[in-house]
């Protein structure tokens, strides 16, 4: 019975954490825009994505509703933040699903877990760049993207994940 209570408590914490990180992404971007969206580099926080991946890496035994959470967060991101439905509502669940397949075959220990978080952010950023370029929504070169956006974003999210 106590094990059931512990799992329920983890589920509640997961949902609260997802809610807070979703809105914190936007609040952080608004209030720290000077530092994040500078003239030379752009750093994008992916707190909600990190929370989802952390839940998959460290909360495997808790049976957390990560896939459902990713669909809701993806839909929320598309409707509330960007206004273009389809980008995150497809991207986040796809990433979570791929993680589920990979993590069921591979066991991560120590720094590999942190590396996995970073790899998830990297894949998601590349996905966003690829899809938006494909749709003709942006026309920024790959080199500019890598130097000014991709690498700084990875560094920021690495710092966040260690915090």
């Amino acid at each position: 019975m106590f094990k059931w209570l512990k799992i329920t408590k983890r589920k509640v914490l997961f949902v609260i954490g997802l809610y807070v990180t979703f809105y914190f992404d936007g609040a952080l971007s608004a209030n720290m825009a000077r530092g994040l969206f500078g003239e030379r580099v752009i750093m994008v926080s992916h707190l909600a994505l990190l929370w989802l991946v952390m839940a998959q890496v460290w909360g495997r035994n808790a049976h957390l509703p990560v896939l459902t959470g990713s669909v809701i967060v993806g839909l929320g991101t598309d409707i509330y933040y960007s206004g273009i439905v389809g980008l995150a509502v497809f991207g986040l669940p796809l990433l979570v699903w791929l993680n589920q397949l990979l993590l069921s075959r591979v066991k991560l220990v120590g720094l590999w877990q942190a590396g996995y978080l970073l790899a998830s952010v990297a894949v998601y950023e590349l996905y966003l760049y690829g899809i938006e370029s494909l749709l003709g929504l942006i026309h920024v070169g790959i080199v500019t993207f890598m130097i000014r956006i991709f690498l700084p974003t990875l560094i920021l999210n690495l710092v966040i994940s260690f915090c």
Partner: protein
Amino acid sequence: MRKFFAQHRTITVMLSLLVALGLMAGSVGIRNNQATPTAVQQIGNTVASWFGGIVNYPMNSANGSVSSLGQLLNAYTENKALKRDVSTLQQTKLTNKTLAHENQQLRAQLKLTRSLTDYTTLNASVISRNPSAWQQQLIVSKGQVDGVRKNMAVLAGSGLIGRVAEVNPTTSKIELISSASESTNQFAVAVNNDQNQLVNGLITDYDLRTGTLVMSEVTSADAVKAGSKVTTNGLGGVTPKGLYVGKVVKTSKGSDGKIGRIYVKPATNLNDINYVTIAKLREE
């Protein structure tokens, strides 16, 4: 490896991707062609903004407190500079009042009831910002019920910062002029050249490397000085005339030797916006 990429999984992913691409293309089409988003999006935005208040309000308050503290520390220096400006302010106000009265009289004589410089303003606070490298968008606290309409010009600080991209019942999304998104509407602007003639053009791009707006499709080949002020010219009837956009930083020549592009530094720091002013052309 073969088991990982099983056929049914691959087909599911490809089908989902096609559906997602269709949704994205549809969203962009609706956004560009309709005045308001779909009912589902409007409801979603309203609900999301209510729930967001619990996180956004404390963050915005904390940021406001830190800014206030910073301003308090700079108060003495700022006060000295402001005192110098106050002495010339009274004369400027009087001159403006005289000019406005004269303008009104002349327009009455010409039976002009509406001009490109006539606009009303609506103030809003920034609730949140899109955490995206590509879509530089702010979410503000005013929406359809407050009179906000799509494509209204938005100002903050010293000048123009963008346009209303999406209107919901109680909130709106402002797309900044620094957005890398191709779907950002272009602004018709003007600047005086060396011969003091008006050069019209369009803001068509934002250069990430230099942090400047790119003005192209210019109507005159004559040189434009660095430091010249760029303002909106009101052409198109959507954006009021005379809104300050920024200052010319440099120009580049096309293959024919004439001016191809003018690079403009935005008037306002686009990364330090807490309040915005939405400009609406006054209707007849």
